Structure formats: C-alpha cells, structure tokens
C-alpha cells in the first residue's frame, strides 16, 4: 500500500510536467492544424538553455528557467514565421514533412553543439527528500510540479479570460470568420506557436534538472506529448492536462509493477488502445480549447 501511494505520488508529480508538454502541443495542433514535430526539440532546447546558463555562465537557476522559456518562445516564433507561414493553406502532410526536416536538423545541431554526452544540471534545492508519512518526494520535484501547475493555470486563464485568448479560440473555431472580426490571423499564428513552444521549453527547463540532459531527450518527450494529446483529444486543453496526469501515473505504476524496461512503452500502448476504442480521445466531451 505504501509502495502504491509512492508510485501514485511519483506519477502525479511526473504527470504535471507531462501535462505542460501536452498542452503546448495540443494548442498548436488545435489552432494551427500543425503536427509539431519540433516540439521535442524545443523541450530539449529549454533543458540545454538552463544547463548553459547555470553551468557555463554560472547564472542563477531561476533566471535560467525564465530565459529558457523566453528563448524557446522566440525560437518557436522564428520557426512559425520561416517554415509554417509560407505553407499556410497547404495540406497537413506537407507541413508535417517540413516539421520532420526541422526536427532532424535541430536535433543534430544540438548534438554538434553539446555533444552526445548526457549532462546533469545543478539546482539549488536540498538533496534530502521531503518525507510525509510513508511517502517521500524530492524538493526539486515538488518545485517542478508546482511550477507546472502554475504555468498550466496561467495558460488556462490566458486562453479563457483574455481578449487574446478569445481571439485564439475564435481563430481555432473559424479562421475566416475570425479574420472578418479584425483578428490578425498571422499574428495569432505566430503568438500561438511561440506560446506552445515556450510551454515545451518550460517543460524541458523544469524536467532537465530532474533527469539528465542529452540531445535525443526530445524524441521520447515529443512522442509522449503526442500520446497525451491523443489521450485528451486533439485540441482539448483540459484533456491534455488530465492526459498528462494519467500518463504519468500509468508509467510509474507500469514501471513499479510490470517492468521498468517497458516504462516508456506505456504511452504508446495508451495511444493504440485509445485510438482503437475512442479515436476522438478520452475526453472528447469534456471542455475543449475552443
């Protein structure tokens, strides 16, 4: 039982960051109909930025986090302007191919820049875990979870409660009519992609210090993000959050009770099962972005 609680706690904590990874992707798919294969690279970009600022520049950890997210958003805006805008209106397959090309190029650029050696990021939190009754959790993980929840809540408010968020949702529901309302569709596209990219970078920046940082870390992250998005239903904001939490818990339970080798297979099995029975996602009826 204690072991079960520990796995559950680990799963929820991990799921918080997964949710962060998933909402960025689901937002981009939902509004832009772009399957963002660079999502994983923006994730590892965030992690490397933190590593670079902390290790190479001896910068403050929290400043590094902020910089990573901001630069991730800028990079995302650049990708949108240079690769996606010229292809707007072409088929989803066309943009998919371009995004795959960008993914390969970005990943190997990272490999070239940072080498394949995995790196650990130093963080200012105490090593000794927090023990609550039968379960324990490290301070850095608590911080990551809290930050993820905070970012998700802030994103939710932005999407739900602001004029910009309403315009984003309107664009998602009907691009042409949104243009008729005076929404600058180009700007919304760039901002949305930058926003989703910033969230991906944030996930990487937060999880980098928990795990280690290496150039291909984004591959699994991206694939997991896809699992989360499918689980929650493409474009479904709350669904992605719940999907992230579910994936986190399932992985921890799977690793704990089945085999740690298959931990990473859980997400894909979920994808396959969900698509088999509910192609629109588990939460198709729940509240959606739009």
């Amino acid at each position, binding site marked *: 039982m204690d072991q079960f609680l520990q796995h559950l706690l680990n799963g929820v904590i991990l799921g918080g960051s997964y949710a962060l990874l998933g909402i960025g992707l689901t937002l981009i798919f939902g509004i832009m109909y772009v399957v963002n294969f660079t999502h994983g690279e923006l994730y590892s970009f965030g992690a490397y930025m933190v590593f670079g600022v902390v290790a190479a520049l001896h910068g403050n950890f929290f400043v590094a986090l902020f910089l990573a997210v901001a630069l991730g958003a800028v990079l995302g805006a650049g990708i949108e302007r240079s690769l996606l805008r010229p292809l707007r209106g072409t088929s989803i*397959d066309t943009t998919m191919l371009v995004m*795959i*090309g*960008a993914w390969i190029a970005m990943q190997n650029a990272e490999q070239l820049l940072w080498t394949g050696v995995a790196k650990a990021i130093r963080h200012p939190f105490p090593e000794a875990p927090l023990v609550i009754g039968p379960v324990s959790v490290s301070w850095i993980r608590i911080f990551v979870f809290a930050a993820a929840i905070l970012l998700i809540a802030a994103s939710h408010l932005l999407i739900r409660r602001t004029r910009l968020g309403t315009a984003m949702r309107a664009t998602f529901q009907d691009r042409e009519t949104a243009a008729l309302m005076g929404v600058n569709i180009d700007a919304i596209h760039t901002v949305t992609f930058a926003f989703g990219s910033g969230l991906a970078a944030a996930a990487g920046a937060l999880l980098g210090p928990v795990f280690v940082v290496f150039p291909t870390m984004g591959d699994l992250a991206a*694939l997991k993000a896809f699992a989360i998005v499918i689980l929650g239903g493409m474009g479904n904001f709350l669904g992605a959050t719940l999907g992230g939490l579910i994936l986190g818990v399932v992985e921890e339970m799977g690793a704990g009770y089945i085999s740690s080798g298959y931990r990473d297979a859980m997400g894909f099995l979920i994808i396959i099962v969900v*698509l088999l029975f509910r*192609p629109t996602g588990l939460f198709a009826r729940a509240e959606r972005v739009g």
Partner: protein
Amino acid sequence: MRRWPAWAWVAFLASIPLWVRNQYYLHVLINTGIFAVAAMSLNLLLGYTGQLSLGHVAFFGIGAYTSALVSLGFDLQLAAGYTFVFEPRPVWLGFLAGVAVAGLFGWLIGKLSFRVRGAYFVIVTVSFAEVVKLVALNWVDLTEGPMALNNIPPVTLSLPGLGELTFWKKEPNYYLVLAVCLLSYAVIRRLVQSRAGRAFIALRENEALAESVGVDVTRFLVLAAVISAAIAGAAGGLYAHYIKIVDPDIFLFIYTVVMVIMVVTGGKGTLLGPVVGAVIFGILPEILREVARPEVQWIIYGFIMILIVFFLPEGIVPAAASWRKARAASASPLGAAGERA
C-alpha cells in the same frame, strides 16, 4: 527518365559487378539496393494511398529480426522450468518468415488504424515503431537486447545442378539484392496499375467519392499496408543476412526519415521515384562522409527535406517528366503533339 527500354536497364545493372571491382563501392550499392526496396514499400503507402507511415522502419526491423532468429534458432523460457527451443532453420525459410511476419504486422496496423487518417495514422505508426523498439531492447531472452544478434548466417541457396551456394561475397549479395529490387518493383508496378492500385489512389484523392462508387477503402488500405510491410520485411531480411548483425538500433526513427526523404525527393506516387531517391541518398552519404561529420550530414538531410517541400514538392521524377515534356514541346515543330507521337 526512361530513354532506355527496361531490359537495357536490367542488363546495365546486372553488368555492374563485372566492371566495378572495388568491394567498398559494391557495398554501397548493396546498401542502396536494400534501401531502395524499403523506400519502394513505403511509397506504396505514402505515395499511393496517401497515408504517411512514420513507423515504417518497424516492418524493416521485424523482417530482419524474424529472419535472423529463424535462421539462428532461439530458446524461450516460458513457464517455470519449461523452455521452448526453436532449432535453426534454413536461411531462405527465415527470409520468407520475415516477410510473412512483417506482413502480419502490416495487417495489424492497417486494421488498427482503419478509422484514423492523416495525423492520427502518423502517430499510430510512430508509436508502433517505438513499442517494437522497446520490445527488441527489453525482451532479452529472445532478441539479446542491446547485445545484438550476432553471427547471422548469410543466405544459402541449394540450386539443382549447381549445388549449395552461400552468399559470403559482395558479388552474389549484389545480385540477390538486385533480384529482390526487381521483384519488388514488378510487384508494386503490377499492383498500382491494376484495379487494386486504382483503389489506393482513390483513397488518396477523395475517400468519400471512392466509397460512394463502391470502393471498400478500408479493405484496400489494409491490403496496401500488408504488401508494403511485407516488402519492407524483405528488405530487413536482406539487411540481416548481409550485415550479419542486428541490434535494436535498427529501429531508429532516423531510418524511417531517410526512407521518407528518399520517397519525397524522388517523387511520391511514382514507380521510379523511390528508386531515384534511394540512389541519391544511398550515395550522397558516401560523398558527404569525406567532408562532414554524421551530425552535419543529418542536418543537411533535414534541410534537404525542407527545401524539397518548398521548391520541388512533387519530387524529381515528376519534375523531370514535365521538364522533358516542355522541352520536347518547344523543340518539336508539332508542339506538344510531338511528345505523343
């Protein structure tokens, strides 16, 4: 592209080992041939049915592992104390088993994704490939995991009158790969120029209209997936018995990307496109190897993919065809009619 008649091309390809004596060049050509088979198989799904399979390397790897395991034999610890022993079988049987098992997984994927198209199909196939990779890594009993399957026997054929023939050298392997290439090309050509192939194209062009005139789209998508996976499995089998070692890295996503680049560059939905793409991207790395590290090479691949989509979205083969048509039209006093004559 095809100034020469088909038999002249075959004769030319068959003559290569007679005048290319450099073993390394032959090795490059064999690799290129294996990739050409894989790219052709991907093209059947991507080019003809319009479904982007981003897990195609899974079928390749399944073919390689199956073929290797059948010819090596393996033991499995089943329940407590009981061990299932599989004796080594002839290589040709392993090869056929590889084709069959890959085809079976193709059927599974086709069935599984009967309701999903586009982005969802892509994600199902990527996920499938990842699961297969993790199984290859973790089912150590069967696959030796990261230790790899070693000493895979080369292809052996016993021909009546010729005795036993074992494919140790480059030359026989070249002919073997060439034969499989030609056979795959013939199978795909026959298929896409038939009623079945038209059903694939109908699915790509307009699914609702296809259904409304009586094309059972799901059935034909499954058929395309099975044949595509089986041919990819054949390529995997060739690879296993030529390289003689198979490890889970065979499932690396990057190999799927290479196949996609080959198909898209050459021209998806054309018969020759994937072959042209495979020749370019089979030989390009050998040129780039001299000047660039692997990472740089991959970065170049990524940029090529982007540039192709931006500037040559149809691919080389269709572009060359329309270029020739335009040139013929301007050169001939009859105008465009000259091309048809």
